[in-house]
Protein backbone atom coordinates (compact mmCIF):
# COMPACT_ATOMS: atom_id res chain seq x y z
CA UNK A 1 0.00 0.00 0.00
CA UNK A 2 1.20 3.46 -0.84
CA UNK A 3 1.11 5.35 2.46
CA UNK A 4 2.97 8.51 3.49
CA UNK A 5 3.66 8.64 7.22
CA UNK A 6 4.91 11.85 8.78
CA UNK A 7 5.37 12.68 12.46
CA UNK A 8 3.93 16.17 12.94
CA UNK A 9 4.64 16.35 16.67
CA UNK A 10 1.12 16.57 18.11
CA UNK A 11 0.02 13.72 15.82
CA UNK A 12 1.25 11.36 13.13
CA UNK A 13 -0.17 12.06 9.69
CA UNK A 14 -0.90 8.98 7.59
CA UNK A 15 -1.80 9.98 4.02
CA UNK A 16 -3.29 7.08 2.08
CA UNK A 17 -2.05 7.44 -1.49
CA UNK A 18 -4.41 4.87 -3.01
CA UNK A 19 -7.54 5.20 -5.11
CA UNK A 20 -9.21 2.44 -3.10
CA UNK A 21 -9.20 1.43 0.56
CA UNK A 22 -10.71 -2.05 0.42
CA UNK A 23 -10.40 -5.69 1.47
CA UNK A 24 -7.19 -5.91 -0.56
CA UNK A 25 -5.17 -3.24 1.26
CA UNK A 26 -7.01 -2.37 4.51
CA UNK A 27 -5.08 -5.05 6.44
CA UNK A 28 -1.87 -3.24 5.57
CA UNK A 29 -3.21 0.07 6.89
CA UNK A 30 -4.12 -1.70 10.14
CA UNK A 31 -0.59 -3.09 10.40
CA UNK A 32 0.96 0.36 9.96
CA UNK A 33 -1.36 1.81 12.60
CA UNK A 34 -0.50 -0.97 15.08
CA UNK A 35 3.19 -0.30 14.56
CA UNK A 36 2.68 3.36 15.44
CA UNK A 37 0.68 2.43 18.56
CA UNK A 38 3.50 0.10 19.63
CA UNK A 39 5.89 3.05 19.30
CA UNK A 40 3.64 5.01 21.66
CA UNK A 41 2.24 7.24 18.91
CA UNK A 42 -1.43 7.30 19.83
CA UNK A 43 -2.65 10.43 18.04
CA UNK A 44 -3.19 9.72 14.37
CA UNK A 45 -4.62 11.60 11.41
CA UNK A 46 -5.64 9.43 8.48
CA UNK A 47 -5.87 11.62 5.38
CA UNK A 48 -8.11 10.15 2.68
CA UNK A 49 -7.82 12.94 0.11
CA UNK A 50 -6.54 10.59 -2.60
CA UNK A 51 -9.08 7.87 -1.83
CA UNK A 52 -12.22 7.84 -3.92
CA UNK A 53 -13.55 4.43 -2.83
CA UNK A 54 -13.87 2.80 0.60
CA UNK A 55 -15.57 -0.55 1.31
CA UNK A 56 -16.65 -2.16 4.60
CA UNK A 57 -13.13 -3.56 5.19
CA UNK A 58 -11.63 -0.09 4.84
CA UNK A 59 -14.17 1.27 7.32
CA UNK A 60 -13.40 -1.67 9.64
CA UNK A 61 -9.67 -0.89 9.58
CA UNK A 62 -10.35 2.74 10.52
CA UNK A 63 -12.70 1.66 13.34
CA UNK A 64 -10.00 -0.70 14.60
CA UNK A 65 -7.49 2.15 14.61
CA UNK A 66 -9.95 4.45 16.35
CA UNK A 67 -10.61 1.90 19.11
CA UNK A 68 -6.90 1.22 19.59
CA UNK A 69 -6.09 4.94 19.78
CA UNK A 70 -8.95 5.58 22.24
CA UNK A 71 -7.92 2.71 24.50
CA UNK A 72 -4.44 4.30 24.71
CA UNK A 73 -5.92 7.73 25.55
CA UNK A 74 -5.19 8.94 22.04
CA UNK A 75 -7.41 9.70 19.08
CA UNK A 76 -7.69 8.88 15.41
CA UNK A 77 -9.11 11.69 13.29
CA UNK A 78 -9.91 11.75 9.58
CA UNK A 79 -9.37 14.39 6.92
CA UNK A 80 -9.90 15.05 3.23
CA UNK A 81 -12.92 12.82 2.64
CA UNK A 82 -14.25 12.95 -0.91
CA UNK A 83 -18.03 13.37 -1.19
CA UNK A 84 -18.89 9.73 -1.91
CA UNK A 85 -16.48 8.46 0.74
CA UNK A 86 -18.17 10.78 3.23
CA UNK A 87 -21.54 9.30 2.24
CA UNK A 88 -20.23 5.87 3.26
CA UNK A 89 -19.51 7.18 6.75
CA UNK A 90 -23.02 8.63 6.94
CA UNK A 91 -24.67 5.44 5.68
CA UNK A 92 -22.93 3.42 8.39
CA UNK A 93 -23.35 6.16 11.07
CA UNK A 94 -19.57 6.32 11.44
CA UNK A 95 -19.61 10.10 10.94
CA UNK A 96 -20.80 10.21 14.56
CA UNK A 97 -17.79 8.21 15.73
CA UNK A 98 -14.92 9.98 13.98
CA UNK A 99 -13.88 13.60 14.10
CA UNK A 100 -13.75 14.50 10.41
CA UNK A 101 -11.85 17.55 9.11
CA UNK A 102 -11.73 19.16 5.68
CA UNK A 103 -7.95 18.84 5.41
CA UNK A 104 -5.03 17.46 7.39
CA UNK A 105 -3.97 20.97 8.49
CA UNK A 106 -7.26 21.47 10.31
CA UNK A 107 -7.03 18.01 11.87
CA UNK A 108 -3.50 18.74 13.08
CA UNK A 109 -4.59 22.09 14.53
CA UNK A 110 -7.28 20.29 16.54
CA UNK A 111 -4.58 18.11 18.14
CA UNK A 112 -2.46 21.18 18.97
CA UNK A 113 -5.19 23.00 20.93
Amino acid at each position, binding site marked *: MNLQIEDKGAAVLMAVQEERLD*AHNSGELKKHMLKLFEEGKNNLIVDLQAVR*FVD*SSGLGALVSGFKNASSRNGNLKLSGLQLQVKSMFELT*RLHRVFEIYTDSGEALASFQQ
Partner: protein
Amino acid sequence: MITDRIAVDIKVPNQTRYLRLIGHIGENIARTLRDYSGDREKLAYDLNLVLTEAMANAIQHANVGDPTKEVHIEISIVAQCLIIRVYDFGIGFDVKQYVEPRHPLDEHGRGIYLMHTIMDEVSYQPTENGHVLEMSKNL
Protein backbone atom coordinates in the same frame (compact mmCIF):
# COMPACT_ATOMS: atom_id res chain seq x y z
CA MET B 1 -36.41 4.30 -19.71
CA ILE B 2 -33.43 1.99 -19.83
CA THR B 3 -33.36 -0.11 -22.95
CA ASP B 4 -29.83 -1.51 -22.65
CA ARG B 5 -29.49 -5.28 -22.50
CA ILE B 6 -26.18 -6.17 -20.94
CA ALA B 7 -24.74 -9.50 -19.84
CA VAL B 8 -21.28 -9.78 -18.32
CA ASP B 9 -19.90 -13.12 -17.20
CA ILE B 10 -16.48 -13.18 -15.56
CA LYS B 11 -14.38 -15.64 -13.56
CA VAL B 12 -11.43 -14.45 -11.51
CA PRO B 13 -9.05 -16.12 -9.05
CA ASN B 14 -10.17 -16.13 -5.42
CA GLN B 15 -7.85 -13.22 -4.54
CA THR B 16 -8.54 -9.71 -3.27
CA ARG B 17 -6.22 -8.16 -5.91
CA TYR B 18 -9.09 -8.68 -8.41
CA LEU B 19 -11.60 -6.63 -6.37
CA ARG B 20 -10.56 -3.48 -8.22
CA LEU B 21 -11.16 -5.07 -11.62
CA ILE B 22 -14.65 -6.27 -10.69
CA GLY B 23 -15.54 -2.96 -9.00
CA HIS B 24 -14.44 -1.00 -12.06
CA ILE B 25 -16.63 -3.12 -14.34
CA GLY B 26 -19.62 -2.15 -12.17
CA GLU B 27 -18.67 1.53 -12.33
CA ASN B 28 -18.25 1.43 -16.08
CA ILE B 29 -21.64 -0.19 -16.59
CA ALA B 30 -23.26 2.63 -14.59
CA ARG B 31 -21.47 5.24 -16.69
CA THR B 32 -22.35 3.53 -19.98
CA LEU B 33 -26.11 2.97 -19.51
CA ARG B 34 -27.92 4.86 -22.21
CA ASP B 35 -30.98 6.28 -20.51
CA TYR B 36 -30.36 6.31 -16.78
CA SER B 37 -32.09 9.33 -15.27
CA GLY B 38 -30.78 9.02 -11.69
CA ASP B 39 -27.45 10.12 -10.21
CA ARG B 40 -25.02 8.24 -12.43
CA GLU B 41 -21.95 8.77 -10.21
CA LYS B 42 -23.86 7.49 -7.18
CA LEU B 43 -24.92 4.40 -9.14
CA ALA B 44 -21.28 3.92 -10.23
CA TYR B 45 -20.09 3.99 -6.60
CA ASP B 46 -22.93 1.72 -5.47
CA LEU B 47 -22.25 -0.94 -8.12
CA ASN B 48 -18.52 -0.77 -7.38
CA LEU B 49 -19.36 -1.23 -3.68
CA VAL B 50 -21.86 -4.12 -3.90
CA LEU B 51 -19.61 -6.04 -6.32
CA THR B 52 -16.57 -5.45 -4.10
CA GLU B 53 -18.47 -6.51 -0.96
CA ALA B 54 -20.02 -9.61 -2.55
CA MET B 55 -16.71 -10.76 -4.00
CA ALA B 56 -14.77 -10.05 -0.79
CA ASN B 57 -17.35 -12.11 1.12
CA ALA B 58 -16.95 -15.00 -1.31
CA ILE B 59 -13.15 -14.86 -0.96
CA GLN B 60 -12.95 -14.47 2.82
CA HIS B 61 -15.95 -16.36 4.15
CA ALA B 62 -17.04 -18.89 1.53
CA ASN B 63 -13.87 -19.90 -0.29
CA VAL B 64 -11.91 -19.22 2.94
CA GLY B 65 -9.00 -17.48 1.27
CA ASP B 66 -8.04 -20.48 -0.91
CA PRO B 67 -6.21 -18.76 -3.84
CA THR B 68 -6.65 -21.77 -6.13
CA LYS B 69 -10.43 -21.39 -6.09
CA GLU B 70 -12.42 -19.10 -8.36
CA VAL B 71 -15.15 -16.53 -7.98
CA HIS B 72 -17.70 -16.41 -10.78
CA ILE B 73 -19.65 -13.20 -11.31
CA GLU B 74 -22.60 -12.51 -13.58
CA ILE B 75 -24.00 -9.03 -14.13
CA SER B 76 -27.07 -8.57 -16.27
CA ILE B 77 -29.52 -5.85 -17.10
CA VAL B 78 -32.82 -6.92 -18.58
CA ALA B 79 -36.05 -4.91 -18.62
CA GLN B 80 -34.59 -2.17 -16.37
CA CYS B 81 -33.62 -4.69 -13.72
CA LEU B 82 -30.00 -5.10 -12.73
CA ILE B 83 -29.11 -8.54 -11.41
CA ILE B 84 -25.75 -9.49 -9.92
CA ARG B 85 -24.90 -13.09 -9.06
CA VAL B 86 -21.69 -14.01 -7.27
CA TYR B 87 -20.96 -17.73 -7.15
CA ASP B 88 -18.54 -19.21 -4.66
CA PHE B 89 -17.30 -22.76 -4.49
CA GLY B 90 -16.83 -23.08 -0.76
CA ILE B 91 -18.56 -23.75 2.54
CA GLY B 92 -20.63 -20.57 2.59
CA PHE B 93 -21.45 -18.29 5.51
CA ASP B 94 -24.45 -17.29 7.60
CA VAL B 95 -25.79 -14.27 5.78
CA LYS B 96 -28.69 -13.64 8.21
CA GLN B 97 -26.58 -12.61 11.16
CA TYR B 98 -25.28 -9.57 9.23
CA VAL B 99 -28.51 -8.13 7.86
CA GLU B 100 -29.10 -5.65 10.69
CA PRO B 101 -26.94 -2.54 10.97
CA ARG B 102 -23.88 -3.12 13.10
CA HIS B 103 -22.93 -1.29 16.24
CA PRO B 104 -20.83 1.66 14.99
CA LEU B 105 -17.71 0.30 16.69
CA ASP B 106 -17.90 -3.25 15.27
CA GLU B 107 -14.98 -3.92 12.97
CA HIS B 108 -16.72 -6.51 10.79
CA GLY B 109 -20.09 -7.30 9.25
CA ARG B 110 -21.00 -4.09 7.42
CA GLY B 111 -20.76 -5.60 3.92
CA ILE B 112 -24.06 -7.50 3.91
CA TYR B 113 -25.84 -4.54 5.52
CA LEU B 114 -24.51 -2.25 2.77
CA MET B 115 -25.65 -4.65 0.05
CA HIS B 116 -29.15 -4.77 1.58
CA THR B 117 -29.26 -0.99 1.85
CA ILE B 118 -28.23 -0.36 -1.76
CA MET B 119 -30.02 -3.20 -3.58
CA ASP B 120 -33.76 -4.03 -3.61
CA GLU B 121 -33.34 -7.78 -3.04
CA VAL B 122 -30.46 -9.87 -1.69
CA SER B 123 -30.48 -13.65 -1.30
CA TYR B 124 -27.86 -16.34 -0.62
CA GLN B 125 -28.66 -19.86 -1.79
CA PRO B 126 -26.80 -23.17 -2.07
CA THR B 127 -25.90 -24.45 -5.53
CA GLU B 128 -24.61 -27.85 -6.65
CA ASN B 129 -21.01 -27.04 -5.69
CA GLY B 130 -21.16 -23.92 -3.54
CA HIS B 131 -23.44 -20.92 -3.12
CA VAL B 132 -24.77 -17.99 -5.06
CA LEU B 133 -25.34 -14.51 -3.69
CA GLU B 134 -27.97 -12.82 -5.84
CA MET B 135 -28.83 -9.14 -5.70
CA SER B 136 -31.24 -7.17 -7.81
CA LYS B 137 -32.17 -3.53 -8.25
CA ASN B 138 -34.71 -1.80 -10.44
CA LEU B 139 -32.99 1.01 -12.28
